């Protein structure tokens, strides 16, 4: 970045340094006696060590030297280095499923084989294919075929039985053979296949097999009264089997076996209570009540002093887990470890999510989307040792170094250098662990808050909801737009537009949903279509960033009234995201707020706000002294 006015600027050379969780930024400027500022250069490097610890020194020096080099200045000329008073927050994550589907006595097979066979409904008694020979004609039979049977032999055996007068009305197969078998049958019947635990299907029981036409879903077995009709159930029994119907909704094929005590339950796991201390109150909320309920209570307990979960329950475990990780982070070599008990959780963000999980008691690896709650928590730490960092920097650079101000206030100051903004101005710093907001009123008063949950949580939600089990892929889905490779020469973007390429695309992305990274398309290993992946991605961002933006701004807005805000400037790494800023802007628009991604100093984008804010604050001070 160049100096604003030509000519050697008069005044003192100062460097603002912002040590963040992931990046360390420097802003070099000359401050004239009258407080006017000439910016000379900026630099950005990775933060070394845990924020607020002496390890930061190396990164800080690197950034300072980088800025000096760009401006062609030497360390000797530096008058003062200004460091931020690091926001003393560290955040952690935990996730817990709160529902569980259980099938007892294998009453149903609700999985969705990609290729079932035949079409329609077949109701009969379950018999193993081995016994078809002895089967008497007349009674309708649902044929159960174990592993190891070849599709040709299955078809031949069924045809023979039917020829002998056995009334085979449906079949349940272990292997992926449904279409193969039905294609070879003299009399077509519905066939459900890929039932991995087929040996557990009770024999000699009344069973119903339903397969819908391609692109359709079953109608009878997913309908409680359909089940009642098929099995002749009375109202009490019908009430009992209604979970079965619900569990089968949306499937293309299904099997239901009528067993004396068989049942499907969708039970809630007792996750335990979240105990919130704050605003002089102690409030309790059941975590399995879901995110909305939790956040409502969290809202009433603001400002939060601490949050705990009753020991022995899942939520107890979740928060303990969060505390432990934070204790590790805060531990500093050569100092006594932080007692976990001392770590006070100062904010909690709960997000409803779901986890595809295998159904207990299922016969075909049925998967149910179990509900889950993700918690992001944040603690304040007294362990920030920026002063020590400042001393080390001063030593390493041979120039004075001091704590120049608190992050939030500095960020607002820096944000003010964004063209087109004015007081009252609020900033939203969209980070990795926490979302921070600060407000500078017309009168110059500044308030700042930090709320739990940011980029890391988004990645975790994407990872689990798409069952990727791969953070690298989840990060990719979060950062880059999606596409579908439709041929070696063209791909369709998520907005529907088609892009043609002259160099054929690599084979490993052929026909796949991909993320469009700077180094080309990279496949997303999922069976889901592009739209589903996109929905999950946007939902995750909305549930974390949009929710937190409103939450944080309400806390700084006068009287919690968003309309009292005028300019909101987005800062931080996630402000560079290709859709989050728009999502937040859309959410704020109804409140008559101007919202956009910051452009610090008119050149730095959402970066360097705190560093340049430090310079501004220092300049203001100097000016004041002069008068």
């Amino acid at each position, binding site marked *: 970045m160049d100096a604003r006015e030509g000519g050697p600027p008069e005044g003192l050379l100062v460097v603002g340094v912002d040590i963040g969780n992931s990046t360390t930024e420097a802003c070099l400027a000359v401050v004239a006696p009258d407080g006017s500022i000439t910016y000379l250069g900026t630099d950005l*490097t*990775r933060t*070394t060590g845990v924020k607020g610890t002496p390890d930061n020194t190396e990164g800080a020096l690197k950034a300072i030297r980088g800025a000096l080099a760009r401006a062609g200045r030497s360390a000797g000329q530096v008058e003062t280095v200004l460091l931020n008073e690091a926001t003393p927050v560290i955040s952690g994550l935990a996730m817990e499923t709160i529902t569980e589907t259980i099938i007892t006595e294998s009453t149903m097979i609700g999985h969705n084989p990609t290729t079932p066979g035949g079409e329609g409904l077949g109701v009969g008694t379950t018999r193993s294919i081995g016994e078809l020979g002895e089967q008497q004609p007349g009674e309708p039979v649902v044929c159960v075929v174990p592993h190891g049977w070849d599709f040709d032999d299955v078809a031949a055996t069924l045809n023979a039985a039917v020829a002998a007068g056995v009334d085979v009305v449906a079949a349940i197969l272990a292997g992926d053979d449904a279409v193969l078998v039905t294609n070879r049958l003299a009399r077509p019947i519905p066939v459900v296949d890929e039932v991995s635990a087929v040996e557990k299907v009770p024999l000699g029981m009344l069973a119903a097999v339903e397969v819908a036409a391609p692109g359709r879903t079953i109608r009878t077995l997913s309908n409680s009264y359909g089940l009642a009709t098929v099995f002749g159930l009375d109202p009490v029994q019908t009430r009992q089997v209604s979970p079965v119907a619900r569990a089968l909704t949306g499937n293309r094929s299904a099997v239901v076996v009528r067993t004396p005590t068989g049942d499907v339950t969708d039970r809630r796991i007792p996750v335990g209570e979240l105990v919130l201390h704050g605003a002089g109150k102690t409030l309790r909320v059941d975590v399995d009540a879901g995110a909305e309920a939790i956040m409502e209570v969290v809202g009433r307990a603001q400002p939060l002093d601490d949050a705990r979960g009753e020991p022995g329950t899942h939520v107890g475990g979740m928060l303990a887990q969060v505390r432990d990780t934070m204790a590790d982070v805060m531990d500093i070599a050569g100092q006594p470890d932080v007692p976990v008990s001392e770590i006070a959780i100062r904010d909690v963000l709960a997000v409803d999510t779901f986890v595809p999980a295998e159904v207990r008691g299922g016969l075909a690896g049925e998967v149910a989307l179990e509900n889950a709650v993700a918690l992001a928590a944040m603690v304040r730490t007294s362990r920030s040792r920026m002063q020590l960092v400042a001393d080390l920097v001063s030593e390493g650079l041979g120039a004075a170094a001091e704590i120049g101000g608190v992050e939030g206030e500095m960020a607002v100051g820096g944000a003010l250098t964004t063209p087109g903004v004015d007081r009252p101005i609020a900033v939203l710093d969209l980070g990795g662990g926490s979302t921070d907001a600060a407000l500078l009123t017309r009168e110059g008063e500044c308030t700042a808050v930090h709320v739990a949950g940011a980029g890391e949580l988004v990645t975790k939600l994407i990872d689990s909801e798409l069952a990727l089990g791969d*953070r*690298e892929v989840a*990060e990719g889905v979060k950062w880059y737009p999606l596409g579908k490779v439709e041929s070696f020469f063209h791909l369709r973007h998520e907005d529907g537009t088609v892009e043609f390429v002259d160099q054929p695309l690599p084979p490993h992305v052929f026909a796949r949903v991909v993320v469009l990274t700077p180094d080309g398309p990279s496949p997303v290993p999922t069976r889901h279509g592009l739209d589903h992946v996109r929905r999950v991605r946007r939902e995750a961002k909305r549930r974390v960033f949009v929710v937190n933006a409103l939450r944080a701004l309400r806390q700084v807005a006068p009287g919690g009234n968003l309309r009292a805000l005028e300019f909101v400037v987005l800062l931080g790494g996630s402000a560079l995201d290709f859709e989050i800023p728009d999502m937040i802007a859309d959410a704020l628009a109804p409140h008559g707020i101007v919202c956009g991604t910051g452009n610090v100093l008119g050149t730095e984008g959402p970066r360097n706000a705190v560093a340049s804010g430090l310079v501004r604050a220092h300049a203001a001070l100097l000016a004041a002294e002069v008068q």
Partner: protein
Amino acid sequence: MTTTAPRPTGAAGKQSLRTEILEARPVNLDGFVEEWPEKGLVAMESEFDPAPSVRVEGGRIVELDGRSRDAFDFMDTFIANHAIDVASAEASMAIPSAQIARMLIDPGVSRDEVLAVTRGLTPAKVLDVVKLMNVVEIMQGMQKMRARRTPANQGHSTSARDNPIQVAADAAEGALRGFAELETTLGVLRYAPLVAIALQVGAQVGRGGVLTQCALEEATELELGMRGITAYAETISIYGTESVFVDGDDTPWSKSFLAAAYASRGIKMRFTSGTGSEVQMGNAEGKSMLYLEIRCILMAKGAGVQGLQNGSISCIGVPGAVPGGLRAVAAENLVASMVDLECASGNDQSFSHSAMRRTARAMPQMLPGTDFVCSGYSSVPNADNMFAGSNFDTEDFDDWNTIQRDFQVDGGLRHVRENEILAARNKAARALQAVFAHLDLPPITDDEIEAATYANSSNDYPLRDVLADLKGAQSVMDREITGLDLVKGLESAGFHDVAENLLTVLRQRVSGDLLQTSAVLTADFTPLSAINDPNDYAGPGTGYRLQGERWEQLKKLRHVTSSTNPETEVG
């Protein structure tokens, strides 16, 4: 269905209990086939190989092994133009093969005298000569013709998870155990920069002066070399027939150009070839495996590379399955040496289910000694070997050391005390931790260092954040990190000795001393090559002898009962 499932026992007919035991022996899991000379599925004795002949006109070879120049394929052309010494060709060819074979094993004939003859020989003539030699004579020849007087060994240091910390720790242990060269490669290619750095740092911790290599596609391998992150290159394949050479998308000229490219950056380099590759690809043109390999060897000679990795290498299953196959493999190593090339002599790929066969396969190289007895002894468990497994791995260390002691031969390795090994592994991991920190790469935790100190395989290490590592690897390329940056990182973190070691290795590329035939760096950083350490074998009591301090080293094993106090062990 795994290929190591026992064979179905003969369906019909009752067999004796003894036969059942024999059927269950590992050797019967190996594959063996009948020869098929018409197709080149034959080791070295084929009536379809051409008869030796040469004709020189106007200082130019116009006939080679029965073909006139207009009928030359590009191998003939290249060999005639570059490999054969035209001046002496006709005279050398006139010498009866039996006499040349005798010169090879006669202690009274010096290596130079043999070279004076072999430099004028055609491929068919060379084959005609070695066909006269049995395996003991081949070994006797190798003992004299090996270019460097002092034998050495090369190790593979890879990780099934491409874990840089593992590579560093295993490289340090490997260097300490005696490998003069260490080679690595990747599962995920994008990991290359980090793993290459780890190999270099680990090697210099274990023993200053060990040379390192990272096998990759030409461009990246050359770039890492030019950056000074690796020290030599080896995986430049050549083939014995024009069709297979073209299949590999290269020619003798493109490879020669590449050879000069490496030298022009001060990087040591050798070609790779081996018996069986052509027939494996179905284009042996009806020639024996050894004849085609001899063409490769002479092509390499003509290209002016200092050395060759051969001994069938990745095709060892083919010569290994035909009669006389391992004799041919021993012969191809000898031929490389008898045309004055550095020979890294194979023993570097999984070869047999039978421990007895695995050992026997290595004797013709280990007993006479070669420039590198293994061109890849797996200094990691074979499960971690990303070169698809070697003939020997970490589990064989003690056996190898014992065989060296039994026969008083130098296979390039030695037994090292546990405390030294643990110290080296730990230091290598810490040094890498410092370098990563200095280069702003994903941090290495103390847990990882603890794991590296005591680990055996990649399973014993904490999982890395692959995403972060790959970003870091990319940044190494983007930021154009070089060997100098590694030196700085090591020095600034207080690893002065390691930094010095690496700097001295880097300095060598300026001198070019390592470009000479069979060059390695000794522990005191003296370049040792065929020039200043020429093989001077002249019969019993001459040449390289395992004696003195080195012999005392190799007498040590894990467990040796003390003669002074039989209740204790020495070492």
